[in-house]
């Protein structure tokens, strides 16, 4: 009896140790696994009209962009997603707390390291629109200690506003400055609130979600709709998709490809 009990404890102990070690190894090897995405699980939520892809991506045709179109895209996105306008509400000094999902910047800011002493004519004036790159290997997802930011199976890098602890590790990890933090309560600065999308609380990080909530009901992202054809959205894994055709026909560049994050946003300059 005594012996068998000891045997049992031994086996149990080894099993527990093994399980522990196993999960540790799993944990370490997840560096890529975690990035490859979560199981959707909630199948009953799926809408038959939903747009689906293996890996969503976006192409920006800067030749078709203008300051007005960039402005229109930003307004449309920010209105839809209840992004606060601190500058309008509290004045210019609040610029440092600004929240932006998509915004216009210059070529030399979007494509650092590609500075050119003798640039093509008007390159400095070229409007470039930047947003989250929905990287294939997102460093933000790697850094997040709670998996509040995660990559879906269709490549979209998402935020769970209710799990985020506000440590801002993802902001340090993102090499594109695509993430914003709610340094104060955003609600007083939301104009024309959209009841169909959650507002955020102070102390959490947010960013572009490729309009996952619109894709789920069969609509294209708001910026794409507002872009007058300058943005093309589609499945990067589908060779027949519009975006793949556009990428096949044009020379495109991406932001900081040397960092190996593999961005899903492409630019025709």
């Amino acid at each position: 009896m005594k012996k068998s009990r000891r045997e049992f404890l031994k086996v149990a102990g080894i099993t527990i140790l093994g399980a522990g070690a196993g999960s540790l190894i799993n944990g370490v090897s997840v560096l890529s696994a975690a990035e490859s995405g979560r199981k959707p699980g909630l199948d009953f939520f799926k809408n038959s009209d939903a747009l689906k892809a293996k890996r969503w991506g976006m192409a920006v045709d800067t030749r078709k962009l203008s300051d007005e179109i960039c402005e229109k895209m930003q307004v449309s996105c920010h209105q839809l997603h209840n992004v606060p306008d601190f500058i309008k509400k509290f004045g210019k000094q609040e610029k440092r707390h600004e929240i932006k999902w998509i915004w216009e910047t210059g070529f030399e800011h979007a494509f650092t390291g590609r500075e050119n002493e003798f640039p093509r004519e008007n390159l400095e004036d070229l409007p470039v629109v930047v947003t989250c790159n929905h990287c294939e290997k997102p460093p933000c997802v790697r850094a997040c200690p709670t998996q509040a930011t995660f990559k879906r199976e269709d490549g979209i890098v998402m935020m769970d506003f209710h799990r985020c602890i506000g440590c801002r590790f993802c902001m340090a990890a993102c090499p594109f400055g695509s993430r914003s933090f709610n340094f104060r309560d955003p609600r007083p600065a939301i104009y024309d609130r959209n009841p169909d999308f959650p507002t955020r609380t102070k102390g959490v990080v947010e960013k572009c979600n490729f309009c996952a909530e619109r894709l789920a009901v069969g609509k294209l992202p708001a910026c794409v709709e507002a872009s007058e054809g300058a943005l093309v959205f589609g499945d990067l894994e589908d060779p027949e998709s519009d975006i793949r055709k556009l990428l096949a026909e044009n020379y495109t560049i991406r932001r900081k490809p040397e960092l190996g994050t593999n961005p899903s946003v492409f630019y025709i300059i």
Partner: protein
Amino acid sequence: MLEKAIKGSKTYWLWVLALLAVIAVGFMFYMRQLDFGLGITGMSRDVSWGFYIDQFTFLVGVAAGGVMVAIPHYLHDYKAFGKITVLAEFLAVSAVMMCMFFIVVDLGQPMRLLNVLLHPTPHSMLFWDMIVLSGYLFLNIVIGWNVLDAERNSVPPPQWVKPLIYLSIPWAISIHTVTAFLYCGLPGRTAWLTAILAPKFLAGAFAAGPAFLILLCLVVRKFTNFKIGQAQIQALAKIVCYAAITDLFFFLCEVFVAIYSQIPEHLEHLEYLFFGLHGHGALVPFMWLSILLIVSGILLLLIPSARENESVLAVACVAVFMGIWLDKGLGMIAGGFIPNPLNEITEYVPTMPEVMITIGIYASGLLILTILYKVVIGVKEELAGT
């Protein structure tokens, strides 16, 4: 043993009260921060970490620095350090507690802190940092307390403490290594993206930690009957000296790589810190002061006649401690965030509430240290029969 902390002189109680008052002020400002959000600090979208994470990084170093007492004593049987190991361990306890406070005040949603345990994420370095820091806290409390208790009862410490002591040595290295890994594994933050970051952190830690310990030893000797000898203090001083030289050497290695390679991404951060970039240079005087303090501290510690004069030694230790604090506790984080990923410059200056919360946390660390040291000194005085 804790009863020793509630029997003290008038000066002791005044000191405790003063610390409590400072903590209360800091706490009031923290309540304001909880209410308003982190917007009351100087942090911004571009410089998204600031003073709090700076202090956290620096204090992890102070905590790890204690191992410079443990290694000679426990691995090389340097007996003189036996007298002060518990001081180093309790300094580590107070430093790690402060680290934890700084992490909590830096969170946007501190009430969700336990999400880190609820959703353990091994690919996040913050997860490992939590493990190594709490483990180190536990080890130092258990080791320090048991060794002191045994000393009080004039018996050798229990056998099971020994493996914990040996474990605590690599563990001390791990806390600062993992803390460096928080930063040096991030693509696109070129100021931190260097394999030398963890070694540099450790070198700074082994200078700042023991330098503070020397100052504490001098204070303890002046105000109590626990007489710490020349031998311990001089040995510590040499450790501070060589660790500070190593820290400076690592810094110069970084400077060489940036300047000789001429790669803008590597140059810009250093340029910002030491010369200012495109007219922005809020930190320039502080960074030069840091270099000046570290170099003069090293010189004073190198010259034997200066080092052996305890007033000069105290000055040298303050210089090294403050120099490394300016480097790690002020420049390290802002330097990493400026310029931002779009090559724009948003400067960072801590605000008054931020500084008050920081001072409050330092006061709470000093209070923990005071109580623990009061116990140690009580035991040592009891043994000395005074």
